């Protein structure tokens, strides 16, 4: 079978359902990391400004806070806040176990503590190299912890289908055909009318529409499929 290039990881469940995880690559993850880094820095600077006024005790508190922020805060976010640090949330990413289950403390701690290894030899050189070479965009911490970073909402959000008088298809459509018709109707607003008609013209066998009306007929069938009745 032809192997298509893609960035998904599919997980067959015992129930025979194929779950697909949409893996996130180095660019969005770098942006997410930068966001988190700036946030940590901001929090630390603000705390230092306040606690610095407390003398020696204040400085010890700052050091403890710095330690917690660097090593534990991100893991805590990943466990308690839906697998996403603030940066990941901003980019629509989340951390999951390899099998798609939500990440727990052991994995979250391992992947965050091993950031130190990814940082080697300097500035995340190993982490970047691992991410580019690994089939699931994993840095070393991810490989050790058995986690993946995925998109929360892959794909564009579907638009509403344009309204039209519902018309049933000339024969019952199977699931694939129904999906294709609905997808077409949802996305037809984004296409130029000429292009939409060009694509719709491929479906004469499906719609039995007269030439030149395939686009409109597909929209009408989609309206019927979506449950509208005249």
């Amino acid at each position, binding site marked *: 079978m032809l192997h*298509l*290039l*893609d*960035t*998904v990881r599919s997980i067959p469940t015992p129930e025979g359902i194929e779950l697909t995880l*949409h*893996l*996130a*690559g*180095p*660019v*969005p993850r*770098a*942006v997410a990391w930068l966001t988190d880094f700036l946030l940590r820095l901001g929090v630390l600077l603000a705390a230092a400004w306040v606690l610095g006024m407390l003398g020696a005790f204040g400085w010890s508190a700052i050091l403890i806070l710095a330690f917690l922020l660097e090593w534990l805060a991100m893991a805590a976010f990943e466990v308690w806040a839906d697998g996403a640090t603030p940066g990941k949330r901003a*980019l*629509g990413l989340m951390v999951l176990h390899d099998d798609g289950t939500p990440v727990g403390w052991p994995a979250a701690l391992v992947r965050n503590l091993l950031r130190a290894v990814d940082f*080697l*030899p*300097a*500035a*995340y*050189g*190993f982490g*970047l190299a691992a991410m*580019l*070479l690994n*089939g699931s*965009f994993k840095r070393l911490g991810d490989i050790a912890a058995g986690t993946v970073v995925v*998109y929360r*909402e*892959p*794909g*564009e959000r579907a638009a509403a289908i344009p309204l039209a008088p519902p018309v049933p298809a000339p024969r019952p459509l199977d699931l*694939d*055909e129904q999906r*294709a018709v609905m*997808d*077409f109707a949802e*996305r037809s607003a*984004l*296409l130029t009318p000429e*292009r*939409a008609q060009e*694509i*719709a013209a*491929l*479906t*004469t*066998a*499906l719609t039995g529409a007269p030439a030149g009306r395939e686009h409109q007929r597909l929209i009408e069938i989609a309206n019927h499929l979506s449950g509208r009745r005249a």
Partner: protein
Amino acid sequence: MALRPRNPWEGADLGVVMLRAWWRPVYSAMVIAVLPVALVAHLLIEQPLIALVVVWWFKPLYDRVVLHVMARALFGVAPSLRATLADIPSLVRATGLAGALSLRRLEIARSFNLPVRQLERQAGAGAAARERLLGRRAGAQTSALMYCCIAFETIAVVSLAALANLLRPASMDADAGMSVIVAILFGAGDAGSWHWLNNVAFIAAYCAVEPLYVGCGFALYLNRRTALEAWDLELRFRRLSDKARARAAPALVLLAAVVAGTSSFFCAETAQAAQSSRELIEEVLAAPEFQQYRTQKVWRPRERAERQPRRSPALDLASWFSSLATAAAQILRVLAYAALAYGLVIVLRFLLERLREGAWRTAPAARAAQAPEMIFGLDVRPEALPPDLAQLAAAAAASDPRLALSLLYRGALVTLIHRDRMRIEHGDTEADCVRRVEATHAHERSEYFARLVTAWTRTAYGHRPPQSSHVIELCTQWPRHFSADAAA
């Protein structure tokens, strides 16, 4: 490449996958493109820093070579190195390289816009408009991609320097090691003979990261066009219509074969198919999963030795008679079975008829147990009614027509339920009762019942009692239809 609408970040990630799939042709093309430029620059220019800047400035040239290889690989096969080299002159001429090296050199969306000029061969205002349209919803991603790739280059250089320090031979003292790092990172003057390392590290970083930048930009471009032109939908529709055609084809073939009358061909084919499927089954059964045998011992009754009938000529007549009797017995048996079947059919038809009539009569005792006690809020037990109902009602007709009609109506219902075994459902209305009576009783009786019900409903619900003469008429006619001993 799997086509589907992706969010732009995911679209950009696809570039990494493409680079991973075709790293060999892409990186060799990249190196082939960079090396001559780097050599010429370093031979002609004294200052290493300026030579490095020149190599950096020519990045759009390398981009074109990398994109050329990737696009060819995506839409067919990756070209050989020789073919790539042969294509370079056309890439230099027809892809707006002059503009890319001068005015647009610092463009942020460089790799995203490159396919417009190189693959669509657009130029000038047309290209600018096209880039604006495509870039409308990918601006954040293209700039993030640009800055990330700058960062990745820096990371590569810094990591190389740090790695060099980590792997420094023990014999080299720390100062010399430090000067190597400084040389790699800054190319600083006091690094002495390690000076050239800086340029090598940076050029290596360009070689490593630039294909990533181009690949991700190309992937973003593809994703944007997939969204704008619905490539994936086109592909799906094509596949579906192919499938529909394939589904229609066997029917046509069959029709043609029947018309031509060449059914033997099909028989042969079917036999062949059966043969091949049998072979397939045997093949599957030969698999080790099915090659498990076990021996099992069970007790079975010993077979009786067969008795050999002794034949003698004297018995021939007797045996003839006995075989005649056996034949007669067989015939009788068949007849008996036929009679049984006939009886069953009769019984079934009888039952069906009764069912269709809707008047399924159960045994009176069972029926009485099921008879309802309250209908329309009226007490319809027989014992709740006086025996001389019609006379009582007639007596009350003038003074209390409501009471009179109530008595008549209840009495009629009781008679219908208990004498006529009429079924009245829990949810039936008065009109339903009338309809049931019409279905099961003579016209005269049902007509009387209808009149009674009308009078009753008008009185009970509409508070419009009929003339007392009408009530008395109903009373006098009542016993004829509904007294317990009147004919059903």
